[in-house]
């Protein structure tokens, strides 16, 4: 089926992402946005409740965040933009209109580069990024006594700054759409403007999807898909819709312009409303807010607050000689990338070696530690980059063996103590002197006469089990090269 779609039709996908900003206060009032887990209607005031007579005041931090987002997405930041009222009735909309931006958004005309594994990178156009406010939340209940449904309104979310990021219809496959979302989320988290967590609802995605005969330029009739609550859902809904639309077209049917909802349990989209039923939002300029004028200085301040972005970081690491996989994994989160950079900077000596060792450790032991417990993040690691670098340097200088280094790292994650302290206290310093090791080697040969005989009769591999015996006895502190030399010497005598 999918193959047929791919050869006969071309899929055209555009995405609209709504993303909550992690400002301290709400978009137009002083209420805290830290309502997650709070009792309903405890983070509210007359303004976000839409009481008669209230007025909005723009949250400057939100504007700085949207400017940072626009810059990170290569957008033009408008010197002059304005807010508009979007009018519609719904019980979660406290004022009966949403303060949004219609024709003059803060950011427009940007792009985001995506790269689906195994394919060439592609630029996806960003049409616009605009600022608006989130709605309240409705909780649907059923009266246990009467069986009747009713709804409760939790106003905590009302007025939370919300950014809408609209892409051009530049994506061609569900995989591209997913990659776009993954990279967009990564950028938003890097620049620290949003938690961008789809499952928690602070990063929501609607998709517009249409099909056209391959090789033609005109767009087909588009369908809007809503209610997708994970990246997987976006991917699956688009994949379903490709097939559904292809089937309609193949039978000579017409695609109806409509909004469809993704039903995850059934893995299908279902029609929600047609174009005829669509709202006329009657946008007009918000008279309670003067136009938003952003000075060059404001935009430059926002730019100065941007960290090195994931794409640039990846490029830099590739330039240092790391593999695609290493570069991508090390830069997956800003936390990890910065940790890695700090570790490398703190490792003394040869740079190329430090880059490689740092990558091995951060992707190896550090990654294992983070993954060992659900919800664990790098921020909780008690080992500072400098401490890890010290450990790496000790292993590198043969003060301790590789095996011991791992053991020390584990102790460091438990106690937060430095490698030097742990090594000294536990006597884990590498045994490299032949006098110190000879006893262990002889003991191993005596304890393993068969292996010794095998080696003497020419079985090179038998040396490994003797090595293992020595390492076990020395609890890994022995220098493997020295042990190997001593074994050969003893066994050849």
């Amino acid at each position: 089926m999918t193959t047929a779609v791919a050869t006969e039709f071309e899929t055209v996908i555009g995405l609209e992402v709504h993303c909550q900003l992690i400002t301290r206060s709400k978009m137009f009032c002083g209420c805290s946005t830290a309502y997650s887990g709070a009792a309903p209607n405890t983070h509210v005031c007359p303004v976000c409740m839409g009481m008669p007579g209230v007025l909005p005041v723009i949250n400057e931090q939100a504007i700085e965040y949207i400017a940072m987002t626009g810059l990170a997405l290569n957008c033009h930041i408008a010197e002059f933009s304005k807010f508009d009222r979007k009018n519609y009735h719904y019980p979660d909309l406290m004022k009966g209109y949403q303060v949004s931006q219609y024709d003059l958004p803060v950011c427009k005309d940007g792009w985001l580069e995506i790269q689906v594994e195994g394919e060439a990178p592609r630029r996806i156009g960003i049409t616009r990024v605009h600022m608006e406010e989130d709605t309240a939340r409705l909780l649907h209940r059923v009266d246990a006594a009467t069986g009747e449904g009713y709804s409760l309104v939790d106003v905590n979310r009302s007025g939370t700054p919300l950014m809408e990021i609209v892409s051009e219809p530049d994506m061609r496959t569900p995989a591209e759409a997913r990659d776009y979302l993954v990279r967009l989320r990564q950028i938003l988290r890097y620049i620290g403007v949003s938690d961008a967590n789809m499952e928690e609802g602070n990063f929501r995605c609607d998709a517009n999807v249409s099909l056209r005969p391959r090789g033609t330029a005109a767009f087909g009739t588009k369908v809007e898909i809503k209610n997708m609550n994970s990246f997987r859902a976006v991917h699956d809904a688009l994949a379903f819709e490709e097939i559904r639309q292809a089937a309609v077209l193949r039978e000579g049917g017409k695609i109806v312009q409509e909004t469809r909802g993704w039903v995850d349990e059934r893995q299908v989209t279902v029609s929600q409303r047609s174009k005829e039923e669509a709202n006329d939002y009657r946008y007009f300029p918000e008279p309670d807010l003067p136009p938003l004028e952003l000075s060059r200085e404001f935009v430059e301040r926002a730019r100065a607050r941007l960290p090195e972005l994931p794409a640039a970081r990846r490029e830099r690491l590739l330039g240092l000689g790391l593999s695609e996989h290493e570069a991508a994994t090390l830069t997956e989160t800003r936390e990890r990338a910065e940790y890695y950079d700090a570790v490398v900077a703190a490792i003394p000596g040869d740079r190329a070696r430090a880059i490689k060792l740092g990558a091995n450790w951060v992707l190896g032991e550090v990654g294992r530690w983070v993954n060992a417990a659900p919800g664990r993040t790098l921020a909780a690691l008690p080992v500072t980059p400098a401490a890890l670098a010290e450990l790496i340097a000790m292993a590198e200088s043969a003060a301790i063996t590789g095996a011991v280094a791992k053991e020390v790292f584990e102790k460091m994650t438990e106690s937060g103590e430095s490698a030097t302290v742990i090594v000294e206290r536990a006597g884990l310093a590498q045994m490299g002197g032949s006098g110190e090791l000879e006893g262990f080697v002889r003991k191993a040969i005596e304890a393993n006469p068969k292996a010794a005989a095998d080696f003497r009769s020419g079985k090179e591999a038998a040396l490994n089990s003797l090595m293992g015996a020595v390492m076990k006895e020395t609890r890994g502190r022995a220098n493997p090269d020295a042990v190997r030399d001593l074994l050969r010497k003893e066994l050849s005598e």
Partner: protein
Amino acid sequence: MMAEAWRLTAHEAHERLRARELSSVELTRSVLERIEAVEPKVNAYITRTPELALEQAREADARFASGTATPLTGIPVAVKDLIVTKGVRTTAGSRILENFIPPYDSHVYEQLRRAGAVMVGKANMDEFAMGSSTEHSAYGVSHNPWNLDLVPGGSSGGSAAAVAAGEALVSLGSDTGGSIRQPASLTGMVGFDPTYGRVSRFGIVAFGSSLDQVGPIGRDVEDVATMLDCISGHDPRDSTSNPEPLPDLRAYLGQDVRGMKIGVPREYFIAGMEPGVKDRIDEALKLFEELGCEVDTSLSLPSTEHALAVYYIIAPSEASANLARYDGVKYGFSDRTGASMWENMEQTRAGGFGNEVKRRIMLGTYALSAGYYDAYYLKAQKVRTVINREFQAAFEKYDVIVTPTSPTVAFPIGAKVDDPFAMYLNDVYTLPASVAGLPGLSLPCGLSEGLPVGLQIIGNFFDEGRILRAAYAFESALGWSNRLPDLA
């Protein structure tokens, strides 16, 4: 205690309070008794607050004792019922807010409280300030104290009637297209609509957000200057509030007006203006000349006639959004007899709003609809700019512009209520300044057939001082101030 203390102007009362010849409690009691006596005839209030008033009066007397009194401390004030007052029902003249007790205070009420003023009640008004007669109040019409069969004007008719009837010494109204100036004119009071942005709209139930402005009504020019001084100034909670510091408005009172240039736009002298009104205005212009002003009647503001159309597109458009929040879900009147949530919302709005409000919601919704926006809303905004430019050009030549406030004196209750367009025409002289956001003051300039005629003085943006200077000089020369009708 003096008899009939309710007859005093605020500044007269202040002198007596300061001299301890009168206490605020005595003054407030005098006003409350007056309310008891005449309110059945006038209906200036939707909600009366006698207990609160006496409590505030006692606080005021304590301030006089401790030397922290201001010119408004202890002065009984009426507050238009769209000004949000914490703990005191605020209806905006609408059934849909019949039981709404606000959990917060408006900026202007905070300012009054800070000054130590005494609130005696919430004044009647046309529902959501939509009207020119208070006949569109859900709480009954207010009557003009000069003749109880006539309207007091509107929408701040209750605020004007209360001051004229002795039921408050001064009041706060709000002006969107003439709602302070026109009722002041029809009741022989002084009403001042300041520059848009001069007074914070925080806590003012919104009608037309780009036009709404709170201002005072009083019995003479000095009292409205004092009130405006109190309520003006920057408020960070209103993003359209002007951050400029306010000059001391009272300093303009008594300044010489010789050489002041007065423009009189000929477009304001139209058919429909009553002869008695025209006579009083002509006399007023002569008086300005006698005072040494240069009066030029050749001024032309050609777009004047379009102000009405502009206003009746922009104000209803904004109102259609501003009134969307009244759905019966959160506060106020709620009809829950419907079969569904949507039905309940519709029934709440159908039963909670009056006809004039519904008419304007329809107008505004239509003007903003897809396919009509450019022809109506956008066009209106462009014409608004043209009107603005004409005023700006005029202010390069003139200090102030003088016009009649209303083409008529007070008209009978019921005369225009069924003819919306005739009612809208009553604001034809006040709409242009509103549309431009300019300050305008109305003060009495005599009687026509026994009823007050109002003179409007329009100034440039944030030039309230010059308006007060002209108004005070005129008032002094005419010898008309604090003239209260005989209600007996």
